[in-house]
């Protein structure tokens, strides 16, 4: 576990998702990376039947024994990390919190190791119909735990293999100020020790963006 940066890879209409994954994989292999299986990150949404509260239940194949849940009541997010059996409990609360199957998103694809770096090329698909939504590139620099310390290094790495599509600034997730429960001054994630839940929360942000786009598209023609 180390600092993980999640970058959406913009798709122009010239190439399809699988083609881009193919191309990036070739590039990684050329950089002496080795493919080490596949990965999967998925996210379910459970919505309350009486208010706006949503519970995002997510899994990450990097942590196969854990369930990451994020409760979102509109004002704040509460993360919770549990055993895998939590999934069965969510089935028990079913009438009160119902699963929104059409909002289920997963990102999966090949996983590469290059030295201490871990690179995952995720194709994002949504709902049961597996509609392709985009590409999410995950880069994990495992030795380092403090995002601000190694951001420049990760940026250079991203630049090396994404070229013009690489981000120039650290993702907003790390620079948002978070209220500190132990101290009046809010802190920034970038200066905090990186936790597995941070990876999941980054995924959630991107998943939510995809969901919004989809809903906007569906609503669009009606307006």
């Amino acid at each position, binding site marked *: *576990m180390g600092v993980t940066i999640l970058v959406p890879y913009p798709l122009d209409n010239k190439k399809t998702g699988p083609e881009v994954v193919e191309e990036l994989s070739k590039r990684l292999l050329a*950089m*002496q990376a080795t493919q080490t299986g596949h990965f999967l990150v998925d996210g379910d949404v459970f919505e309350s039947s009486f208010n706006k509260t949503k519970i995002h239940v997510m899994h990450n194949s990097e942590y196969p024994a854990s369930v990451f849940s994020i409760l979102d009541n509109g004002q704040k997010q509460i993360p919770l990390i549990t055993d895998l059996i939590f999934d069965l409990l969510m089935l028990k609360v079913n009438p009160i919190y119902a699963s929104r199957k059409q909002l289920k998103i997963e990102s999966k694809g090949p996983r590469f190791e290059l030295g201490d*770096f871990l690179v995952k090329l995720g194709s994002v698909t949504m709902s049961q119909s597996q509609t392709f939504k985009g590409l999410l590139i995950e880069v994990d620099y*495992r*030795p*380092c*735990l403090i995002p601000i310390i190694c951001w420049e290094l990760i940026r*250079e790495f991203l630049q090396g293999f994404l070229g013009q599509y690489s981000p120039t600034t650290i993702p907003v997730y790390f620079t948002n100020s978070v209220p500190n429960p132990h101290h009046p001054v809010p802190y920034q994630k970038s200066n905090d*020790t990186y936790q597995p839940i941070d990876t999941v929360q980054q995924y959630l942000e991107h998943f939510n963006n995809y969901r919004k786009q989809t809903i906007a598209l569906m609503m669009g023609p009606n307006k």
Partner: protein
Amino acid sequence: MDVQINAALNGIKNLRASVSNIFETAITAEGTFLLEESIACVTQNFKETETCINNLNAPSVPFTLGNTSYLNYETDLEKQNMYNELVNGYKWYEKTHQYSAIASTLLQHNSLKRSYFSSSNKRRRLLTGAHTVPPKHVDHLISTFNVNNMQLKIYRPFATNAFLHINLSRVLKAAIILRGLMIEWVTVKGFNESLDNVDDHWSESRYEVFRRVQKAAHSAMLHFYSPTFAELAIRSFITWFGSYSTLFSEPCKMCGKHLLNALPPTHRDVRSLDPTHEECRK
């Protein structure tokens, strides 16, 4: 005596080889010429063996086996095997003796020798080496170190010799194993790797980058070593090691980049403390 026996044994071996050679040629039966040649060879070998044997003289006194001869009187079947074990043990002991003699001569030539080692000169033994410093002195000296971003903690799992644990600004963890004030070993691990168990000190880090840093630390430990100024040696090592707090954040002084072969600059110059990639520093 030994030489003669060996020569005789060799002679017998040659003789046997040539005899079996005859049979092989006889089986293939490729003409009498080859056979004759082999027989000549056997005769030759036989003569050699004979001279060897003649050179041997019977030992005047019977071999004394010492206490082992009493094993003859042992009636217990299980204990009769002890003789074999005894012989093995003896061979093993002989080998150790031989190897240590070789090692000793090699060590005499080694210029990187880090402790006073001399078996002949008794006067030198009176000098207090860096490795025989009282624990109190070590504690005091270490408490005076004050390097930015570095937390030091001493603990002693093995009696007097100190393990110095270093937390370097949320970047890495390291353990320096001291013998007195002499650095014996350095282990470098990631911030999220365990160093709590004593065994962790001898396993390598999971991450390539820390394995490289550990290598660099080992060569630096030899570089800074000085038998006479032990305090200075450890102080400069700690200062040098402190420069790794920028392991991930500072680019290479030579190529200006963070990464080379997916690794940050893992080398620090011993004087200027400049970060460079291992490949860049030439």
